[in-house]
């Protein structure tokens, strides 16, 4: 197996991880403020649809006179608006009407599915519009030439860079700014925040809506990154995987990115496998090894940035990293018998991984303490 292939897979993993990471950050904004968000899927779906419709509309309105990127950007903005609106609905239902937040999230998902299917059936001809095109890949001048790392990280569509920037920004903001302090207080002990004059519900409204914007970016990415058109139900469960990534990443954006990379990797490998690049079993081992390594890196980064992590984490990170490296080595150097794993089964990987993560096989996770409970003054 050669480097090109390796680099290709990792790069693809980052791409596939991007919508999941956006979704996870969306969940982060909500859950850190104390609002459960299982509607990420619906928000991403709306975002995807609006991205498509927005760019098409813009294109039609301006008669194709402006560079294609302009309509793509308009599509992006439409996506954020659409998802933001639906997030606002979730906020209104769960904060003002105090609907159980899981039910409220389900309602949003149902509505999103219904609306997007309706619009797709009514207005989008599956064979008609050729699609709106995709964002061009931008190679960052010097950095993308660095051997091995360069093409993995610095040769991507702009939304990928945006995602990486957001991850860093959100990590900083959550722990080092007044906004982050207040957000966390509102999610952990809203009454305490109230008694120092913070408007709990307003903070929740704003954060949930901002979360919607992020989910919209994730959905837009699906349309504006690869296929250039909207397909019904194209999110395919990514919103829920994003939620698992968030939980696994201990409600931090860096952690969520690490988990998203794991899921993205499984998706990337599935894609490559269908192209017949590698022997199935070897791919599986490689995936697991890479995933573990990435995980360890993410947690290590988390530990560096954030004090107060649990004491056993050093050893845990070491173990995970070692296991990862061992498996990668095994994958590369052992002669694997060509066992036939049905192609479909590799599509299972993200979902199975999510279940394993949630089952706590990789560590218990503690959510913000006040999550799920509407805040009442009395």
């Amino acid at each position, binding site marked *: 197996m050669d480097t090109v292939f390796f680099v290709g897979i990792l790069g693809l993993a980052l791409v596939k991880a991007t919508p999941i990471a956006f979704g996870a950050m969306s969940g982060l904004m909500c859950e850190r403020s104390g609002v459960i968000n299982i509607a990420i899927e619906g928000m991403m779906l709306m975002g995807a649809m609006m991205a498509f419709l927005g760019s098409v509309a813009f294109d039609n309105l301006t008669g194709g006179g402006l560079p294609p990127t302009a309509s793509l950007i308009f599509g992006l903005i439409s996506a954020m608006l659409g998802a933001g609106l639906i997030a606002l609905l979730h906020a209104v239902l769960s904060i003002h009407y105090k609907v159980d937040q899981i039910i409220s999230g389900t309602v949003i998902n149902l509505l999103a599915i219904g609306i997007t299917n309706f619009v797709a059936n009514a207005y989008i001809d599956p064979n008609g519009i050729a699609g709106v095109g995709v964002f061009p890949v931008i190679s960052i001048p010097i950095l993308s030439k660095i051997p091995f790392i360069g093409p993995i990280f610095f040769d991507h569509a702009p939304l990928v860079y945006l995602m990486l920037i957001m991850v860093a920004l959100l990590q900083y903001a959550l722990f080092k*700014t*007044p906004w982050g302090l207040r957000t966390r207080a509102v999610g952990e002990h809203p009454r305490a925040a109230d008694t120092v*004059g913070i408007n709990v519900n307003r903070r929740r409204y704003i954060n949930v809506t901002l979360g919607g914007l992020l989910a919209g970016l994730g959905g837009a990415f699906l349309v504006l990154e690869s296929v250039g058109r909207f397909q019904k139900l194209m999110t395919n469960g990514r919103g829920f995987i994003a939620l698992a990534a968030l939980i696994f990443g201990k409600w931090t954006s860096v952690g969520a990115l690490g988990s998203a990379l794991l899921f993205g990797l499984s998706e990337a490998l599935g894609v490559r496998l269908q192209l017949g690049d590698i022997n199935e079993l070897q791919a599986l081992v490689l995936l697991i090894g890479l995933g573990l390594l990435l995980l360890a890196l993410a947690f290590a980064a988390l530990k560096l940035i954030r004090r107060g992590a649990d004491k056993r984490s050093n050893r845990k990170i070491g173990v995970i990293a070692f296991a990862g490296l061992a498996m990668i080595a095994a994958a590369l150097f052992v002669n694997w018998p060509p066992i036939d794993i049905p192609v479909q089964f590799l599509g299972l990987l993200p979902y199975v991984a999510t279940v394993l993560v949630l089952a706590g096989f990789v560590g218990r996770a503690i959510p913000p303490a006040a999550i799920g409970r509407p805040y009442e003054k009395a």
Partner: protein
Amino acid sequence: MSEPVIRLSGVSKHFPGVLANDKVDFELAAGEIHALLGENGAGKTTLMNVVYGLYAQDEGKIYINGREVEIDDPNDALAQGIGMVHQHFMLVPVMTVTENLMLGHETTRGPRLGLLADLDEKKVAEEVKQLGEVHGLAINPDALVQDLSVGAQQRVEIVKALYRGADVLILDEPTAVLTPQEAEELFRVMRSLIAEGKSIIFITHKLKEVLEIADRITVLRDGKVAGITTPSETNESELAAMMVGREVILQVEKGPPHPGEPVLRVEDLQVKDLREQMVVRGVSFEVRAGEILGIAGVQGNGQAQLVEAITGLAPVEDGNVFVDGKDITNLKPRAVTESGIAHVPEDRHKHGLVLGYPIDENLMLQTYYLPPFSKRTFIQPKAVRENAETLVKEYDVRTPSISTLAGSLSGGNQQKVIVARELSRDIRLLIANQPTRGLDVGSIEYIHSRIVAKRDEGVGVLLVSSELDEIMGLADRIAVIYAGEILAMMPASEATKERLGLLMAGVQEEPAEN
């Protein structure tokens, strides 16, 4: 005569179904400690929440130093120099002291990015440490609040108010979680704050404290002012009468115990908490039939885990529990119940009742699977109903019907439901854990009398309470638990508040006969 620092004039506040404050007039003079006294539910906390801006009053005015003000939220109150230390601490457990103090009023450095600016934790930590030293309140700015002791957390709360520049401090039931010695320490701090020119409002329902520390006392009853007086002009019985509106028997009526054979024997019990720390460390005692053993101690010294271990809700690391000679160590809760143990739990909403269930279903919660409530896996609604009607009458539970949801009842009636359920069974041992916390005087009296009645029927009673008055009034023998160990055991006649207070604070006595 200078203007009072705070003056409330005709303040009323109502919630759906209840008038919490009814045209209340209140004055806080400069440099005084003014106690706001009343029983649970009298409206004291509500009134102060209005002053602190957490509630808006429905009518009435607030004057600060003679000027009428609008206080719409805590920021306004703090701007007026009013700070509040709540009964349940308003600190975020997973954050540090510094973060908690900064919250809402953050100091930042660097470019002015508003909410996205960089927090300046070092500076605040410095300021906080200094502030603590100045007032004699030692606190560690970098500690996580969840790692602090209760007393330390309270100090943090006080510093938090001072940090925001409060000249007036409202303290809501501050001694509820302190040992008598810690309470004395708090009083010392309060006096020193007064000496620096602050003024303090002190909310409580404890008569003795009020007489000790207050300069003036305002008594609230059912939302109205029942009287304003000073310690020199009044005494406990008068204050109690003002609080309740009738003669109050401060001492529980009970005859001497007639103890029989030991019903409960605990030997060398060791129990861990959820964090794998050993919180019960080799506890041994027995409870005999027909006596009340009271375990006194400040919350957090292992009593909760002790009770859980006895009742089968927490695993026992080492040691044994015997009921009537039978070993029930580590048996499941149901088996424990079936060996004749009744348990009135500490948290009635979480463990004692299902708030969403009607009263009749709550009344069969422990034994629903046995006849008469069920025959061969089928529930018998008639039996359930009849049992409920009998018990509601017998235990004087005030409710419109037996189908009323438990969540609609008052605290006192909810506790009566639990007590009715537990005491109506054929039991050998009753474990009552903080049985009257948060209840009105009438309910407290009733439940105490029921406990004594059960004792006189020959049932053994294990009473766990952090209210010393309750222990001293009810128990025949008293044990004190501290840091997971029983420090002393004595007949009630030999117990004094001072002696118990010292033990509760961990001060060992010279070895005497035990």
